[in-house]
Every structure is written in structure tokens, then in C-alpha cells.
């Protein structure tokens, strides 16, 4: 967006406090890591205000100054925290060599509409910072697990070697353990045999139910829908306890079939919901047209209706798969030790022996989930494009 107003230079009375605030924020983390958060805030704030003042009053060659500041920060980081400190220091130095001048030049208004008030500009950036922090809050616990899974020791601890980025502090031993241990491999095998079958059942029944429930002539549609969706709403532990006693009576408790059926019941609501949503956009006159041309209902379903609702069916199936793959409560009740799934093995592993093998498995599962969700997103985009809802 072209700016109508020329960029206005800002006085130190504005740049100084803002830089100090940013410095205090950074200082909070550095200070906490070094022992005193409060001291970090004060020092960071003072340092950045001073830096801003220096940058504004001395007319130094900009590029060189910025490199210089980054280098100084990197050196301090290296002395304090080794290789890791070097990386953090460089990042901080690069940011704080740029930030005060960015403020002082008024460049922060460059991309924004010129009529915004100061408050609106502040909110524009505050909003981005808040979003970034929420994102960090959501993702940090998952990301922190990944380097820990390469730990050379048997604890959930960032060892000094790891923080120095010393290769000796890292190893693949927990991944090896996962691929070589009989317990983990049996659990993986169980998960990989239970989840697909449960998904297949959930998709078949869920799709049929959704199609039936979306035709007007079915009586008590709302009530049936509510019952079918209930496994998603009822607390899992209640379903699990109920299933345990019911399955014990009919001899399904502790069998492969029992676990598959239980997981299928948990997956069906997801399929019903996604397929019902796709059916809303489905034009019923297409099935009548097909019938008109002599196709029987089965042919109509497979040649006309199914291809059009397929994205909904697949995304429902993916949810059903993930549900079965991640599920621990129901399988603890309905399964026995010979149906031990991956989440079960992780659960007992965490309780009895905190071993980073769990983190290695968690990392593998996270990658798998990301792959599945990416597929889901790509399918969704494709279906939107097919329906002409998105210009892309």
C-alpha cells in the first residue's frame, strides 16, 4: 500500500521507552535463565534504552553498526552460554540493532493506512505479538519434546552437553530402542492393525448413517443423530466403564474384535458430522437425474453421490483413525495386555519408568499427525476448488 504521508522521524521520548520495553521483555527470559528475572528486566530495559539513544544520536553507517551489534551480542552470548548462547545472542543482537532505528525512522507506519491513530497502530502490532505468543504457548510443549528425544541419557533432561550442542549429548538410542524393543513393536503392530479396521467400520457405518439421516422421510432423525453422536459427548471414562462390563458379559472383553468395535463406536460421530456437513452442499436432484436415466440406487450411490461427498468421508475417516490411534482410556478397559496399543504403552511407560523412548515415539506420532492433517487440509482445499467456493 503506498503511503500518502512521508515517514516522520520519531523523537527519543517515544523510541527510548518502546525499546526499553522490548529489552525488558527479552531480559525477562535471559534473566530467568541466568537466575534472576527481575534483574534481567531492569538490565535489559536500561541496556536497550541506552542502545536506542546511542543509535539515534550518533550517525553511524547503519549496515556496519547492525552487524557490529549482532557480533557483540553473539560474543556475549558465547561467553555466557556457549554455542546455544551464540545463537540466541546473534538473534537478539540482530533484532536490537534494527528495532530502535526502525522506530526512529517511523518505518513502522510504512505498511499501514495513514489515517490510523497512534492507538490503532499500537493495537496493530500488539495484536501480532499476542497472536505470536499464543502460537508459541500452543506449540512450545510439543516442540520441546523433539530435541529431548535425541537425549543421550535416560532422563527428560537437557544435559549441559545438549545445551552446548555437543554431538556427544545427542544420540538415536531411544529411536533404536523403539524399533528394537519387543514391547514397543508389539504395541505399534497392535495400533496399526486396530486403527485401520476400526476406521473402515466407522467410515462405512458413519457414511451410511449420515446419508440416511439427511433424507427427510426418516422418522426421529434428531433423536437418532443425538444417540449416534453421544460417544463424542459422554465422558470417555463412562463409555469405557460401560463397554467394559457389557463386553465382559458377551465375551468381547480382552479381544481384538472388542477393541476394534469400541474404537469404531468412538470414530462414527466424526464421520457422521463431516459427511452430514458435505451432504448439505449436495444437490439431491442429481440422484433423481441418475434414477431417471435408469441407474439403480446402488449405482447412483457409488457413481454419483460417493464421488461428490468423498472429501467429507475421507476427512471423517482421518479423524476416526486418529481417534483410534491416540485413544488410551477405552483400550485400557476393553483391551487386555495382548492388545496393548501405542498410547497404552506410552501411558504405562510414563508412569513406571520415565524413559525418553516415549519422547521418540511422541516425535514420530507428531510427524504422523502432521502428515495426516496436511492431507486433510489439501483435500479440503481441493473440495472447495471443485465446488467453486475458493478462487485459488
Amino acid at each position, binding site marked *: 500500500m503506498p503511503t500518502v504521508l512521508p515517514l516522520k522521524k520519531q523523537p527519543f521520548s517515544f523510541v527510548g521507552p518502546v525499546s526499553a520495553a522490548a529489552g525488558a521483555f527479552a531480559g525477562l527470559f535471559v534473566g530467568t535463565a541466568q537466575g534472576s528475572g527481575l534483574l534481567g528486566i531492569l538490565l535489559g530495559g536500561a541496556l536497550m534504552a541506552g542502545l536506542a539513544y546511542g543509535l539515534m544520536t550518533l550517525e553511524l553507517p547503519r549496515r556496519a553498526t547492525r552487524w557490529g551489534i549482532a557480533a557483540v551480542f553473539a560474543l556475549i552470548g558465547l561467553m555466557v552460554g556457549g554455542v546455544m548462547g551464540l545463537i540466541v545472542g546473534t538473534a537478539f543482537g540482530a533484532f536490537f540493532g534494527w528495532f530502535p532505528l526502525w522506530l526512529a525512522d517511523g518505518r513502522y507506519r510504512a505498511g499501514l493506512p495513514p489515517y490510523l491513530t497512534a492507538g490503532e497502530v499500537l493495537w496493530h502490532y500488539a495484536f501480532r505479538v499476542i497472536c505470536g505468543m499464543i502460537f508459541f504457548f500452543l506449540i512450545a510443549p510439543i516442540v520441546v519434546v523433539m530435541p529431548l528425544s535425541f537425549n543421550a541419557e535416560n532422563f527428560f533432561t537437557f544435559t549441559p552437553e545438549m545445551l552446548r550442542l555437543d554431538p556427544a549429548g545427542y544420540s538415536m538410542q531411544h529411536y533404536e530402542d523403539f524399533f528394537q524393543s519387543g514391547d514397543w513393536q508389539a504395541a505399534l503392530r497392535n495400533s496399526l492393525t486396530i486403527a485401520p479396521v476400526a476406521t473402515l467400520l466407522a467410515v462405512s457405518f458413519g457414511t451410511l448413517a449420515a446419508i440416511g439421516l439427511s433424507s427427510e422421510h426418516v422418522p426421529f432423525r434428531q433423536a437418532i443423530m443425538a444417540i449416534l453422536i453421544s460417544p463424542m459427548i459422554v465422558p470417555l471414562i463412562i463409555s469405557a466403564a460401560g463397554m467394559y462390563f457389557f463386553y465382559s458379559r458377551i465375551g468381547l472383553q480382552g479381544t481384538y474384535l472388542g477393541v476394534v468395535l469400541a474404537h469404531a463406536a468412538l470414530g462414527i460421530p466424526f464421520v457422521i458430522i463431516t459427511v452430514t456437513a458435505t451432504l448439505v452442499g449436495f444437490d439431491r436432484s442429481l440422484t433423481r437425474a441418475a434414477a431417471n436415466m435408469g441407474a439403480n440406487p446402488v449405482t447412483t450411490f457409488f457413481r454419483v453421490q460417493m464421488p461428490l461427498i468423498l472429501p467429507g468421508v475421507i476427512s471423517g475417516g482421518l479423524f476416526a483413525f486418529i481417534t483410534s490411534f491416540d485413544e488410551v482410556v477405552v483400550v485400557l478397559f476393553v483391551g487386555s495386555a495382548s492388545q496393548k496399543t501405542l498410547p497404552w504403552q506410552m501411558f504405562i511407560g510414563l*508412569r513406571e519408568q520415565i524413559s525418553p523412548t516415549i519422547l521418540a515415539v511422541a516425535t514420530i506420532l507428531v510427524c504422523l499427525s502432521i502428515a495426516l492433517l496436511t492431507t486433510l487440509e489439501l483435500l479440503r482445499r481441493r473440495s472447495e476448488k471443485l465446488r467453486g467456493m475458493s478462487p485459488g
Partner: protein
Amino acid sequence: MKLTSAFLASTALAVAFSPAVAQEMSNEMTIVSWGGAYQRSQQEAYSKPYVEMHPEVTVTWDESSNEAVAKLRAMNEAGNITWDLVDVVAADAIRLCDEGLAMEYDPDDLLAEAPDGTSAEDDFGDLIVSDCFIPQIVYSTTFGYRTDMVGDTPPTDVCAVFDLEAYPGKRALEKRPINNMEWALYCDGVAKDEIYDVLATPEGQDQALAKLDTIKDDVIWWSAGADTPQLLADGEVVMGSTYNGRLFSVIVEQNQPVGMLWDMQVFDLDGWIIPEGLSDEELARVKDFLFFATDTQRLADQAKYISYGPARQSSAPLVGEHADLGIAMAPHMPTDPDNAKNTLLYNYEFWADYRDDIDAKFQSWLVQ
């Protein structure tokens, strides 16, 4: 994988050649234990050699001992007992026996006698604390401390836990009154043999909680045996209580800077119970396995893999070296004379009577 298919192949052979055995005893056995290093020691010492002798048997391990009481109740209610042999602590065995969920047994009938001919009943002695309980190991709950966080004077006395001046920092204690109350009273000046008399009175319970109050802000409460080793390895706590085998693993196997504080360790027992309601074939198999797995040599073998003391007197002289590290295991046993100078034995009767009351009091104190 290879092992399983070998089992399957040999099962097929065994079925073909020895139909008599296959008819009498079930060939599948589900054993419930605690997981981790302890379960591994049982697999190495008991089930692997047993399966080598009886290749037709497949053993499935279920790591559910923690919730064994609740699960056995549910199984009993559902009329579907899926476990054949369950490893529990003595207190749980007493409860299960009282509720009729565990089978009573006759030691001399079920268990092997010692090599010198001593009867099983005498060999296990007082450790058979319930008619259903087949003792296996003696373990203790005791303290470990970070050697690099206690300065030049490492603690030798359990009351160091309550001494925030000499040993500042967080402590890890188990999130239940058992053991903590006893240690609190002992360090508040109550004589060791009067602890349970005092603890039986409401004033005594308040006294123990008041002592715990002095360190409450510095306590991290743990509930799984793996928590304290992790906290110690992290340096999150300066000292913490856990099972002595876990501390052995942290110190000797994982080489962490942790020291052992044996003073006032609390002995407890762990062993097997047979669930009530097994079919004849299942019971026959379990009995055959137990006769083997609780004999003098097998109990001594288990100590090669974990530092818990065998429950048979006749096993003690046979305790040898660690299976991988080759160090002598005897000095790491809680029952070693050097370690057992000042100890306490878990008082099963007291806690059976007072557990519910003191638990409630402890929990409400926790949230204050």
C-alpha cells in the same frame, strides 16, 4: 518378533509330541507386574528360564499392578478374570485377601523347600504376612540426595529432610501419608518404637502434619516411582524419597551425582497373589510356574538385575553380581547390615486400620 515365532513353532511341536501336558495345563499365562526395571528382572530371572523349559507356554505381561485392586474388583464384578498371576505390594495383597479376590494357599504345598530341606513356610518366615501373599522381595522406601547440592556435609540422618537450613532446596515426597507421617514424628522427637502409638491418636496425626508443615512449601509430591529419579537427575530437588531399586539405577546404572541415605528406610514387601476364580487348567499352570519362580535360586537370580532383597532366607548367600556391570549386589541390598542399621518395617496392621482416616486428613492438609 523372532522370539515369538520361535515360541509359536515350538508350541506347535510341543502340542504334537506331548498332548498330555497340553491338556492338563493352560499354555497361556497373563502375569501382572509393575513394568520398568522391576518387571524386566522378573522376566529375566523367572519367565525366560521357565519358557525355555516349557516352550509351549506363552507369557503375556500386563503392567497394571498399580491399579490391580480396582481392576480385580471390576473383573470379579464382570465375572471375567483375565489375569493368572498378579504382583502386588503386601498391603494390597492383604486387602485382596480380605475381599476374597485372592486365593489362599498352603506354603508347604505350593512352594519349593530350601536346598537344605527347610520347609518353605520356615524359609519365608514372617514375610508371609497374609494367607494369600507369596513373598518375593524386600524393598525399601528411602531417600536419595544430589551429591553436588549438599555442600561438604552429605546427610546421614533422615531428619536432614526436615532441615531447611542445612539443606535448602526442594524435596520430593510421596503424595500419601504412609512413611511421611512416620518420618515426621521420628524427626519431631518421637521414639522409634512409639511412633505408631502416637500416630494412632488425632493429636499425634496433627503433630506429624505440623512437622510436615515446616517443609510443605519446599515439597514436590510424587506419585509414580519414576518421578523422584527424574527430579534428582534434573537437579529439581536436593533430595527425595523413592524405592531403593530406583535409586540404585540412578546412581550405579545411570551414573548420576546422587547419593543414598539409608537411615530410617522403610521396609516393605512385594510378592504374588493368585486371583480367585481361575479355571483348573489355568490354576495348574500358575502353580507349576510359581513352584519354579519362587525357589531359592530364582529369587537369588532376580537380585542380579535389581537391588531388592530376596524374600527367602536361603537365597541371601546366593546373591551374586549385577548381570551387566559385574559389581557385587550384596552391598546395595536394603537388607545389607551396613544399610540396615536404623530401619522401620511397614506396619500393615496399623495402616489397614487407620489408612482411610489418615488419608482423608492428609489430603485435606495437602490442599490447605
